[in-house]
C-alpha cells in the first residue's frame, strides 16, 4: 500500500511534467542475506545464518544413495529422512557438532501383511519413539511402535462430503502430544485431516480462505457457460506442509497461491492454526508474510515465493523455506521479517529451483533437505544471528538491561537492522527510559511502541510540571478577564457624570 502510494504520487506528476522521458532502473547485486526496511526497500545484511556443512549419502555412509527424499523430521538429536525414492526411512543421530551417524534404516515393519512402504513422504516421531509414517503410495498413515511393530492405520476419511473417487494420498503429517494426527493429502483441499489418537477421523480443520472479489463476480456473471467452465474455480488451495510447534499449534504453509491474492492479502502463505483450525498467526509486520516482496522474472523463475516447508524455533521464530528461489525467510513472533537469505544455484547454501523441500531445526541450527541433490544442508547462526536470538531470549526472560545491550551489539553489527532499534527501544521502555525509547521507535517508524512510550512520557511530564501548567492556565483565563475588567472600569469612569467637566 505504501509502495503503491509512493509510486502513484510520483507517477502522476511524472507523466505530466516529464512525459516522454524514460526512467532507467538497474538491478543491483545484493548480499547473501538481506532484509526489508520500513519502506520495503531491500537492505543488505551481514549473514544471519551461514552454511555449516552439506551432507550427502556418502557423508552418512549409506550403501544405497538417497533418492528424491521428501520428508525430514527432528526429535531431540535424531534426524529422520524420508527416502521416498527408495521406500525407506533413515534414522540419523547427530554426534557432536558436525557429525551424523546412521542409526537405523527402516524399510519394513512387523505385524501386518502389507509391511513395506510405497513412496513414504513424511515421518513424525512422538516422545515415546512411536513412528507415524505417511505411506503415500499405499494410501495410509501407519503408526508403529519403537520396535517397528504395527499399531494403527489411518486411512481415507469416512466423510460424505469427500469425493468417492479421490485416492487418499497422505503427503505431510504432524502429531500433537495427545497422539492426534494432522495430515495433508494431495487432492483434498478442505483443510487438515484430523484423526483422534485411536485412528478415527474427527474432521477437517483450518481450510484455507477462498479468495474471491467483486471483479471475479462480475466476470463470472458476464461469461458464457463454456467460458465459465474454463475459469479457475474458486476452491481453497491445499496446504503444502505443516509443522507442530512446541506449544501445540500447527504452522501450515501454502505455496501455490495466486499472485494477486497474495498481494491483496486475501490469501495467506503461512498460517498458525489452533485446535479449532483458526488462524492465530500474529501479523504485526510492516508487510505481509509471503517471503520476497519483489519477484522479478528471469532464468525461468518467476512469481512469488513458494513456501514448501516451515519450521518454528522454540522462541516462536517461524522459518519458511521457499523452494522456488531456494531461499529461507525468518519471521519473529510478531510477524516481522528477521532475515532472508539464499538463492538459486549449485554452490553450498544455494538450491536449484524446486530442490529444497523440507526444513527442520536442531536448536537454532537449520537443516534443509534438497530432493534433487539428495543432500542435507546445515545452516549455523553467525555472531549476528546468535546475538539477535540472545537478545530476544533475554527480553522474554525479563532481563531488559541485558537484552538492550545485546540488541545494541546487533545494531553495531548491522546498522540497517530495524528490529535491533525497536528491540533497544522496547528494552528502554521496560526500563522506564521513555524519552530515549521514543527516539529509537521514531527512527524505525514503530508508531505503536512509540505511542506507548510517549503516553508514559507525557504523563510523567504533566505530573512533573503540574504547578507550572496550573499557573499558566489560570493566567490564561485570568489575564484577559482582568484586562476586560480594567477596561470596563475605565469606561465607566470616563462616562461617569461626576467627572464630567462642567
Amino acid at each position, binding site marked *: 500500500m505504501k509502495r503503491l502510494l509512493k509510486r502513484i504520487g*510520483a507517477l502522476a506528476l511524472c507523466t*505530466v*511534467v516529464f*512525459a*516522454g*522521458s524514460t526512467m532507467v532502473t538497474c538491478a543491483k547485486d545484493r548480499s547473501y542475506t538481506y532484509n526489508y526496511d520500513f519502506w520495503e526497500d531491500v537492505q543488505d545484511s551481514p549473514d544471519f545464518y551461514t552454511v555449516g556443512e552439506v551432507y550427502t549419502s556418502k557423508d552418512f555412509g549409506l550403501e544405497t544413495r538417497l533418492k528424491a527424499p521428501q520428508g525430514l523430521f527432528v526429535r531431540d538429536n535424531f534426524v529422520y529422512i524420508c527416502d521416498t525414492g527408495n521406500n525407506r526411512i533413515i534414522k540419523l543421530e547427530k554426534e557432536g557438532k558436525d557429525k551424523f551417524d546412521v542409526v537405523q534404516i527402516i524399510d519394513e515393519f512387523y505385524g501386518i501383511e502389507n509391511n513395506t512402504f510405497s513412496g513414504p513422504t513424511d515421518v513424525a516421531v512422538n516422545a515415546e519413539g512411536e513412528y507415524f509414517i505417511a505411506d503415500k503410495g499405499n494410501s495410509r498413515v501407519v503408526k508403529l511402535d519403537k520396535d517397528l511393530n504395527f499399531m494403527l492405520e489411518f486411512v481415507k476419511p469416512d466423510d460424505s462430503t469427500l469425493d468417492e473417487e479421490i485416492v487418499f494420498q497422505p503427503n505431510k503429517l504432524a502429531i500433537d502430544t495427545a497422539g492426534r494426527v494432522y495430515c495433508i493429502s494431495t487432492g483434498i483441499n478442505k483443510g487438515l485431516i484430523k484423526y483422534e489418537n485411536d485412528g478415527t477421523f474427527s474432521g477437517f480443520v483450518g481450510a484455507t480462505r477462498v479468495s474471491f472479489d467483486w471483479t471475479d463476480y462480475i466476470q463470472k456473471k458476464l461469461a458464457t457457460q463454456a467460458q465459465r467452465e474454463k475459469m479457475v474455480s474458486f476452491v481453497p488451495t491445499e496446504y503444502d506442509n505443516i509443522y507442530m510447534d512446541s506449544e501445540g499449534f500447527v504452522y501450515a504453509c501454502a505455496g501455490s497461491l495466486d499472485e494477486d491474492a497474495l498481494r491483496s492479502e486475501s490469501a495467506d502463505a503461512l498460517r498458525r492454526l489452533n485446535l479449532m483450525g483458526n488462524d492465530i498467526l500474529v501479523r504485526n509486520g510492516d508487510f505481509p508474510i509471503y517471503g520476497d516482496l519483489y519477484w522479478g522474472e528471469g532464468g525461468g523463475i518467476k512469481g512469488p515465493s513458494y513456501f514448501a516447508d516451515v519450521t518454528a524455533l522454540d522462541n516462536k521464530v517461524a522459518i519458511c523455506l521457499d523452494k522456488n528461489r531456494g531461499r529461507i525467510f525468518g519471521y519473529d513472533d510478531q510477524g516481522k521479517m528477521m532475515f532472508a537469505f539464499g538463492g538459486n544455484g549449485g554452490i553450498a547454501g544455494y538450491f536449484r529451483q524446486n530442490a529444497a523441500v523440507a526444513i527442520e531445526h536442531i536448536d537454532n541450527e537449520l537443516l534443509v533437505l534438497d530432493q534433487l541433490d539428495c543432500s542435507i544442508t546445515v545452516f549455523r547462526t553467525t555472531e549476528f544471528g546468535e546475538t539477535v536470538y540472545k537478545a530476544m531470549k533475554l527480553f522474554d526472560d525479563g532481563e531488559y538491561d541485558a537484552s538492550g545491550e545485546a540488541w545494541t551489539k546487533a545494531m553495531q553489527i548491522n546498522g540497517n537492522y530495524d528490529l535491533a532499534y525497536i528491540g533497544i527501544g522496547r528494552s528502554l521502555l521496560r526500563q522506564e527510559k521513555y524519552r530515549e525509547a521514543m527516539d529509537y521507535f521514531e527512527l524505525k517508524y514503530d508508531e*505503536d511502541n*512509540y505511542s506507548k512510550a510517549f*503516553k508514559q512520557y507525557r504523563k510523567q511530564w504533566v505530573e512533573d510540571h503540574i504547578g507550572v501548567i496550573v499557573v499558566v492556565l489560570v493566567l490564561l483565563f485570568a489575564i484577559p478577564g482582568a484586562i476586560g475588567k480594567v477596561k470596563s472600569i475605565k469606561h465607566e469612569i470616563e462616562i461617569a457624570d461626576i467627572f464630567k467637566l462642567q
Partner: protein
Amino acid sequence: MKELFMNRSSWQRYWKSLKFSMYCITHPLDGFWDLTHEKRGTYAAANTILILTLIARIAQLRFTSFVFLRVYWEEINIFLYLSSILFPLALFVVGNWALTTLFDGKGRLGQVYMATCYCLVPYPLIQFPLMIFSNFVTVDEAEFYTVINGLSLVWCALLIIAAMGQIHEYSLAKNILFMVASLFAMLVIVFILMLFFSMISQGVAYFISLGKEFLFRL
C-alpha cells in the same frame, strides 16, 4: 512601485483585505459576494494566502509527527510536491473560468483566482496548529487528527462551491452543475496537456535524430 510600498493606505487596504478572508470563511455567501462586488479582496491577500498554504504543505512534511505522516525523503521533490497544490489550482481556475465565461458567468479570470485562494484559508489556518497538535497525541487519539484534518479539506471544498456561486451570480442548481462541469474541464485540460507534451517531445526527438543523422553523414 516605490509609492505602492511606501504608501500607508495601500498597506492598510492589504491588511484589511487579508482580515476580510476571516469573514469570508465564516460567512461565505455574504463574504464572497462582497469580495468581488464590493472590491473588498486584493490579489496581494490572495497571493499571501496561497503562499501560506504552500508553506503549510511543506512544513507538514517536517513537523507533523511520524505517527500520522511518514515521509520517504529519498523521493520527495519539493517542486513536484508544491505543484500538487499549484497544478490543480491552476487547472481549476482556468477550467472554471473557460467554462463559465461561455455560460453567463460574471466572474473574470482574476476574480476566480482570487476567490479560490480565499477559499484556501481554512487549510493553513487548521494545518499549522494541527502540526503542533500531532506531536502531542498517541495512536489511540489519532481519530482527532484525522477528523480535524478532513475538516480542513471539506471546509475548503464547501467554500469553493459557495464562492463560485457568488462570483458568477449563479443559482444553486446551476452552480453545482458547473462545479461538476469544471471537474470535467480540468480532465480535458490534462488530456490536452499530455497530448501536447508528448507531441512536443516526439517533435524534439525527431529534430534531434535528424541533427544526429546530419552530423553523422557530414
